[in-house]
C-alpha cells in the first residue's frame, strides 16, 4: 500500500520545522518515528499534502533525571526508554515502553509520537496520565507546558496547534516510598492492548498516602477515578481494597466492544489488571524486585 503523494520536508532545526508547520497549517502532518503516522497514511486516514519529518532533529532524544523530574525528549524511542537505567526508576514507564508492539516498532516509534497520536488504545496516553506527566510544547508563540490530562482532549485529538511540536515529556520522579506498575492484556505482541491498567502508590509507614490509578482502552481517553482512589488512600491496601477500587473505576469506564473483546469481557479483564498492577506496585513499595511484563492471550 502506498500513501497518497505528499511533499516531503526535512527541516534542520526545531524553529525551521515550526515555521514550515505554520506555513502549511492543516495541510501538514508531522513524521517522527512513523509507526502510527505511516500506517495512517497508508490507510489514507487524514488529509495531508506536506509531510514534515522531524525524526532527525537534534537534542530531542534525551532521557535525563534533573531534580525531581525525569525529562524525556519527544524523539526518544520506546526501545531507548525501555532500556534506560534512569527511566527504570519509574517501573510503570519501563513496563509501558517495553510492551509497546514488538521490537521492530519499539526501535522506530517515539514517545512524543505515541502520545500525540492520542489513540484510545495507546499505552503512552494512559501510562503518562497515571504518572501525572506533563508535555512541553514549542510553537511560533514560544513554549508552554501542559499536563497530559489537558493535552489529550479526545481520541486522536490533542490541544496541539497546527504550528506546535511536542519536544519533551516530563515525569515526576518517585520518592523512596513510591512505586508503580503498568500492565496490559494483549492478544499478540504487535497488537494494540485489549485493555490496560496503571497505578502509582505512595506507602508511608504501611499506609497509602498517595495514589494514582488509570485505565487504558476503556473509553475515548484514559480513565481516572477519584472515588476509586479514595478506596485506597489511608489504607494498608489489601487485595479486597484493590478489588473495591477496581469495581469503582471500571464501573465509571466505557470500554468499547470491538474485535478485541466484548464490553463484559473487557470490564472483567480491566478489574483483574487493576488488581495485578496494584499488587505489583505494592510489592515494589515494600522494596521487592518484581519483574514486569504484560499478559498475552
Amino acid at each position: 500500500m502506498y500513501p497518497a503523494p505528499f511533499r516531503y520536508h526535512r527541516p534542520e532545526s526545531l524553529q525551521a520545522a515550526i515555521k514550515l508547520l505554520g506555513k502549511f497549517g492543516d495541510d501538514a502532518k508531522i513524521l517522527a518515528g512513523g509507526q502510527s503516522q505511516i500506517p495512517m497514511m497508508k490507510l489514507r486516514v487524514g488529509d495531508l499534502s506536506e509531510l514534515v519529518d522531524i525524526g532527525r532533529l537534534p537534542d530531542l532524544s534525551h532521557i535525563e533525571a534533573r531534580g525531581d523530574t525525569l525529562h524525556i525528549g519527544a524523539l526518544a524511542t520506546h526501545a531507548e526508554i525501555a532500556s534506560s537505567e534512569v527511566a527504570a526508576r519509574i517501573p510503570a514507564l519501563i513496563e509501558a515502553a517495553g510492551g509497546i508492539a514488538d521490537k521492530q516498532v519499539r526501535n522506530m516509534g517515539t514517545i512524543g509520537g505515541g502520545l500525540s497520536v492520542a489513540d484510545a488504545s495507546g499505552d503512552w496516553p494512559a501510562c503518562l496520565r497515571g504518572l501525572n506527566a506533563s508535555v512541553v510544547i514549542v510553537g511560533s508563540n514560544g513554549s508552554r507546558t501542559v499536563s497530559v490530562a489537558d493535552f489529550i482532549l479526545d481520541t486522536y485529538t490533542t490541544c496541539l496547534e497546527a504550528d506546535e511540536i511536542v519536544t519533551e515529556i516530563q515525569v515526576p520522579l518517585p520518592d523512596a516510598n513510591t512505586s508503580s506498575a503498568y500492565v496490559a492484556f494483549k492478544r499478540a505482541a504487535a497488537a494494540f492492548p485489549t485493555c490496560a491498567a496503571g497505578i502509582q502508590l505512595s506507602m508511608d509507614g504501611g499506609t497509602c498516602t498517595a495514589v494514582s490509578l488509570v485505565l487504558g482502552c476503556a473509553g475515548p481517553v484514559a480513565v481516572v477515578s477519584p472515588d476509586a482512589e479514595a478506596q485506597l488512600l489511608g489504607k494498608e491496601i489489601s487485595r479486597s481494597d484493590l478489588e473495591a477500587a477496581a469495581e469503582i473505576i471500571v464501573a465509571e469506564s466505557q470500554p468499547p466492544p470491538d474485535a478485541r473483546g466484548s464490553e463484559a469481557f473487557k470490564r472483567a479483564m480491566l478489574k483483574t489488571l487493576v488488581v495485578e498492577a496494584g499488587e505489583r506496585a505494592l510489592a515494589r513499595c515494600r522494596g521487592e524486585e518484581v519483574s514486569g511484563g504484560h499478559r498475552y492471550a
Partner: protein
Amino acid sequence: MPNTVVVDITVNGASYQREIEARLLLVEFLREELGLTGTHIGCDTSYCGACTVTLDGKLIKSCTCLAVQADGGKVETVEGLEQDGKLHPLQEAFSEHHGLQCGYCTPGMLMASKSLLAENPNPSEAEIRKGIAGNLCRCTGYVNIVKAVGAAAVKMQEV
C-alpha cells in the same frame, strides 16, 4: 519542494543513489528499485514482520518506514546473510531443523533472530520466543523456528 527526493542508502554494503517518490516505502525501495526481493511484503500493516530488516543496526519493519527515512543509513537484508557463498549459521540451522514450511516469513525470522543473537548470544527458549514476537508464521512453525534459532546460537558460540 518536489514530491521526489534523492536518497543515498547503503544496502548490504553497497551504496545506492536513487531519485524516488517521497511516499516510497523502504520495502518497496528494496524490492522494486534494487530488485532485492528477499525481503517480503506480508501484511503491509506493520503486524507480521515478513519485511523485517535492520536500519543502522536496529531491527525495523520496512513496510512501516519511508525509504527517505533511511537516507544516509545502512540497511541489511536477508540477502546480506550469506557470505562468500556460505550460508549464515542461522540459515543453515533453519534448513537443518525445518524452521520453515512455506518460507514466506523466513527472511524476517532470520533478521529478527540475527538481531536477537547479537544482543543475547545464548537465549533461553522463552527469550527466543520473545525475540521473534514481532514475526508471525502462518504455517505455525514456531516450534522448529525456535529450535533452529537455539541451534544456531550454539553453533555461533563454537566459532
